[in-house]
């Protein structure tokens, strides 16, 4: 049963309700504790492209018909799969998306081309899910802010140079901003807009 051709949809969660709730809980945990790396164990089948299990599991758990999805060139092989399972509309521009999945962070669009939300509705912003080359507990980034007792460390490989400076430039716009979910294979860490990152 595993001889399915690569294009087109593949099976989603084996147990849609339990898997989606468990992964929702893990993503929530990651967002509440910025820098904490959590492991995602579903779905079993992955469409072609760079997106790993953590990114796909997050997509299957969080996307639905009300969340326009933007995929970069590298991740677009997963579109048919996500469209089938989540029924999510396609966002024509990054700014029209509730979720953006990026398979190749090297060609990341500028952060302010995504939706930042408005002062009245800061929740109407794009959540970026970026597949990075490596995630480590003890890296060269120092994180502080809500959800972190003092300071914590995180290592991320694969983001373009100058990324953190551009992200920091959005901080004065709070409550507007962009939440990041960084995925690497089966693991993910989250950096909500409130987290301060020092290199």
């Amino acid at each position: 049963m595993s001889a399915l051709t690569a294009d087109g949809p593949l099976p989603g969660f084996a147990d849609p309700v339990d898997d989606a709730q468990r992964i929702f809980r893990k993503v929530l945990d990651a967002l509440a504790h910025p820098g904490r790396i959590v492991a995602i164990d579903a779905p079993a089948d992955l469409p072609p492209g760079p997106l790993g299990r953590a990114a796909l599991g997050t997509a299957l758990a969080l996307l639905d018909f009300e969340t326009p999805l933007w995929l970069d060139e590298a991740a677009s092989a997963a579109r048919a799969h996500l469209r089938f399972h989540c029924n999510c509309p396609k966002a024509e521009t990054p700014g029209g998306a509730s979720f953006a999945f990026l398979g190749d962070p090297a060609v990341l669009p500028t952060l302010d081309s995504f939706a930042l939300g408005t002062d009245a509705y800061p929740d109407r912003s794009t959540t970026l899910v970026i597949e990075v080359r490596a995630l480590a507990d003890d890296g060269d980034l120092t994180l502080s802010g809500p959800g972190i007792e003092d300071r914590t460390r995180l290592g991320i490989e694969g983001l373009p140079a100058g990324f953190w400076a551009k992200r920091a430039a959005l901080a004065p716009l709070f409550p507007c901003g962009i939440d990041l979910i960084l995925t690497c294979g089966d693991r993910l860490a989250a950096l909500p807009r409130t987290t301060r990152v020092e290199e």
Partner: protein
Amino acid sequence: MAQLAKAETATLEAHWQGLDERPDYALLRPAETGLVMVRGRISGTGAPFNMGEITMTRCAIRLADGPVGFGHVAGRDRRHAELAAIFDAMLQHPRWQALNSDLIDRLAKSRADRRQAEQAEIAATRVDFFTLVRGE
């Protein structure tokens, strides 16, 4: 799809078991039961209205080499939805075009026969009222 959805589960199961060669398939969306709103139109052509919700079971499968099949059936029979999805996918595959004559035509005929028998039974008790002015 309509013929598959309205067929008896036993008929589909028998045909599936009777196949010489059964394709490999994967469940994209295992059979699940939910509610759908049935809409109608007043007198068939008027304004649409919501008639009520019915229980429906849906399933989506994919054959090992390509086509995706969907089954939507009224009721809670999960196996029926799965079989309908499998046959729907097979009908899109050049290898199983014979199903059109082997199965679908047979289902259509047995349904038409059933319907005709039912109508004949009802027609037997028909009463024509004779009045001076018919209320038409």
